[in-house]
């Protein structure tokens, strides 16, 4: 085996390991959402190739309002679906589309785009 082959093997395996770590195992930082004066937990989520922020922490039994702003026209992100909660919203580009939720049970609730390519998570405490 030549030196370049060894380098390619090591670099390749290293890169593969990094891909696995970055996309599967590294933790994204969850955003804790504060309750406003009116008792609503309100957050703005930017939709562009993904949801920013994509992990949000809320308190149970308090109304939640997620304001989605879709800053792209790519059809992929047109819909946001909260399948566990039976909610769906069509995100008009460059407009604030509110999604109102009331969750009593603590736990993790996922949301995603219509094709299941973009993912986000609500953590209810």
């Amino acid at each position: 085996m030549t030196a370049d082959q060894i380098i390619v093997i090591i670099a390749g395996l290293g890169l593969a390991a990094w891909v696995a770590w970055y996309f599967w195992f590294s933790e994204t930082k969850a955003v804790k959402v504060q309750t406003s004066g009116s008792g609503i937990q309100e957050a703005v989520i930017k939709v562009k190739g993904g949801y920013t922020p994509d992990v949000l922490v809320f308190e149970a039994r308090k109304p939640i309002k997620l304001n989605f702003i879709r800053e792209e026209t790519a059809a992929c992100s047109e819909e946001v679906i909260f399948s566990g909660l039976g909610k769906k919203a069509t995100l008009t580009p460059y407009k604030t589309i509110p999604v109102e939720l009331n969750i009593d049970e603590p736990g993790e609730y996922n949301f995603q785009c219509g094709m299941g390519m973009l993912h986000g998570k609500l953590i209810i405490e």
Partner: protein
Amino acid sequence: MTHDPVCGMEVKTSSQYYIDIDGKLYEFCSQGCQEKFAVDPMLYINKDTAIKTGYKTTSYGTEKISIPVVGLHCISCVNTIEQEIMKLPGIKLVKVNYTTETAHIEFKSGEVTTAQIINAIKNAGYKTGQATLKLGVQGMYCGSCVTKIEHALDNQNGVLSSSVDLGTETAIVNYIPGAVDISNIKNEIEKLGFQVFDSSGVKEESGSEIKDEEEIDENQAAREKEYKTLIKKFIFAAVLALPVMFFSYPTVWNLPEQFQMGSPTLQLIWIVMSILSLPVMFWSGSQFYTGAWAAFKNRSANMHTLIATGITAAWLYSAVATYFPGVFPSAELADQFFDVIFVVVALVVLGMALEIRAKGKSSEAIKKLIGLQPKTAKVIRNNSEIDIPVEEVVLDDTIIVRPGEKIPVDGVIVDGSSAIDEAMITGEAIPVEKKVDGEVIGGTINKTGSFKFKATKVGKDTALSQIIQMVEQAQSSKAPIQKIVDKVAGYFVPAVMITAIITFVIWYVFGPDPNLIYALITFVTVLVIACPCALGLATPISLMVGVGKGAENGILIRSGDALETAQKLDTIVLDKTGTITEGKPSLTDVVAVNGFSTDDVLLFSASVEKASEHPLGEAIINGAKEKSLTLSDPKDFNATPGFGVEATVDGRKILLGNLKMMQKNSIELANLQERSRQFADKGKTPMYVAIDGVAGGIIAVADVIKKDSVEAITELKKLGLEVVMITGDNSRTANAIAKQVGIDRVLSEVLPEDKAFNVQKLQNEGKKVAMVGDGINDAPALAQADIGLAIGTGTDVAIEASDITLIKGSLKGVVLAIQLSKATMKNIKQNLFGAFFYNGLGIPVAAGILFPFFGLLLSPLLAGAAMAFSSVTVVSNANRLRNFKTSWK
């Protein structure tokens, strides 16, 4: 044409009903209106169209408000409301006017809010005519603009509260419909120098899930724009791809020597290609880079990541080969792959464009439903007919509908009759005749006559709104099969990237020369061929089309779960009354013996039943009325459950009941017993009649079988289902009905509360059981069954216990629901198989698994084409469901 001054309806001149006052002619639609007018003409001539509803603050800190109250039926209601409001702090005066249906309140500002007062009215059990309007406001730059608008709106008569948001540029206004209208509110804001638009439409409540047409159009417009942009990007890349393809394969096209590998001309062409490829990558393919980067920041990866990585790798290698060919150890390695960039970008962009088109079709059903929502209503307020936005219609409003018009909300006809086309809601093709007391559904179309109706459900309580909400919910739910897909999808893209890297390493280390080129080609091909979108789209897109198709046919499927279970059923339990039969028994036979006439027997039985509330009694009374018999009032009425009823009619002692009753009273029945058995064998319910201790005859009633029940049951059996009938009837009657409709298994004499238990018993036999019944009496059984199908009536669509609601009361719907579930699940499976098969086969082939055996290697160009059309195929396949038709009519 002129207008009736009383009801506001259009009247053809000259009308036969008219009154002449001081030379002016007033014409009316009916005698009723004419009489009303005659009582107090000035009331109608000088009517003040503006409702005296207002809101003002006096200089002494006392505020006055007038709020219209809906549903004041009695004088005592006035006291209830007044007492409830008086409980609030700071109330100085409350006066509820019964005739004008208005509450006048004076209160100390600061101590109580209008919202609290409205709540108090609600607590008293009444509704106020409050509505919420959401408007977009443009041109606000600061916090002071917000206060300025809020202040102006709050001072407007009829506005209860307003809230303006600078961030979202919206104003939410709570107002009293009738006191102020939307154009007043808009004008008020515009007067301050801001622009107003219906950004989110007019809504019953802020944050309501129901989108109006405008919003849909906006999404449609955005989609159309995206489509056009993608097509432009495709054309740009495709046009440039042609010369690039030409010069990239000089040997294939047999080009002259100066265009062959290594020639200075070709070198120059490569340089041109490297430059031209930049706009293709960063304009035609810009979404790949922006999408990939945005996802990367979120630590996720998608289709864009794969394409962006693939074309970037191809460009980098080609650029090095073009500008620094000396870097490569051998000359043959210095090859270019610009063609891959042009072709892959062009094809994938085209695929995305086609997918947008196809997806637009998939969501047509819900768009159609939303489009059904009427925008305005002709309401009678203060005796005049006014056009108002449908959101301002309140409960108990009287609404006029003329031929060809859409019915704005749900209600009950109070005057007139018509044929109404309800196809859009129930799927029933033939218009339905409706008269006074008939229920009308908002969104349906009035065909022939004019009528007035009273609104019973408005806003988001209407059947149409509920249907839209249910369909949206179902479309956003997940079929259980999707869970496996979700697991795979979560790992898919990074797994493809890892596969591509390993493929590169393997080809580099073990591949034949030129190994670097092979490694690069396979690396790019693997990235390009993988199609996560096909996988992600497979289930939801079919579910969306399937659920939408159901709604078009009056079948509301609650969730993907229900859809998946519905196609696995073994047994279907049908409730007899109201499901197989009409649920309205009618008199079928009267037998008279011992010298009595049939009229005697019928007259006495019907007179006894006047005191009973039993549905069978109603059938007997109706039967007697049809024969124009005059009934007498019964005395000493007594009902013995399980036996029958008795009473004295015209001084004669009448017994009406079953065999046990006759035996208890020692009535000699002779051959009547045999006749009774014959009736029971035909599915009728016979009752013996005894008059003054002597058998008088038999009265038989029967519930009519719905006309398509037999056909539907045959069809259910053809679907391989065991059909079971459940009923409280005795086994003889039950078996007779079952025989008539072709049911083999009967659960008879089941008490209503035991229906759920009987369903459970069937489940314990290891069967997947569906229960079909009405949503009220059968609710526990519907909930117990694996699938509860509720046969809805009219506007009751959101039946909690049911998994599937059939708006039209026919068993045909059950067949259609099951067939549709089967078709949808089949479609989902085809899509999933296609997507898994495609990726499962495509990726290894792209990695070169066939090369050692057949010397075959997939071109990245072909991979790009395959990827581009795989997701279009999935969407197109789902769209085939739109053509779903039941196998029978």
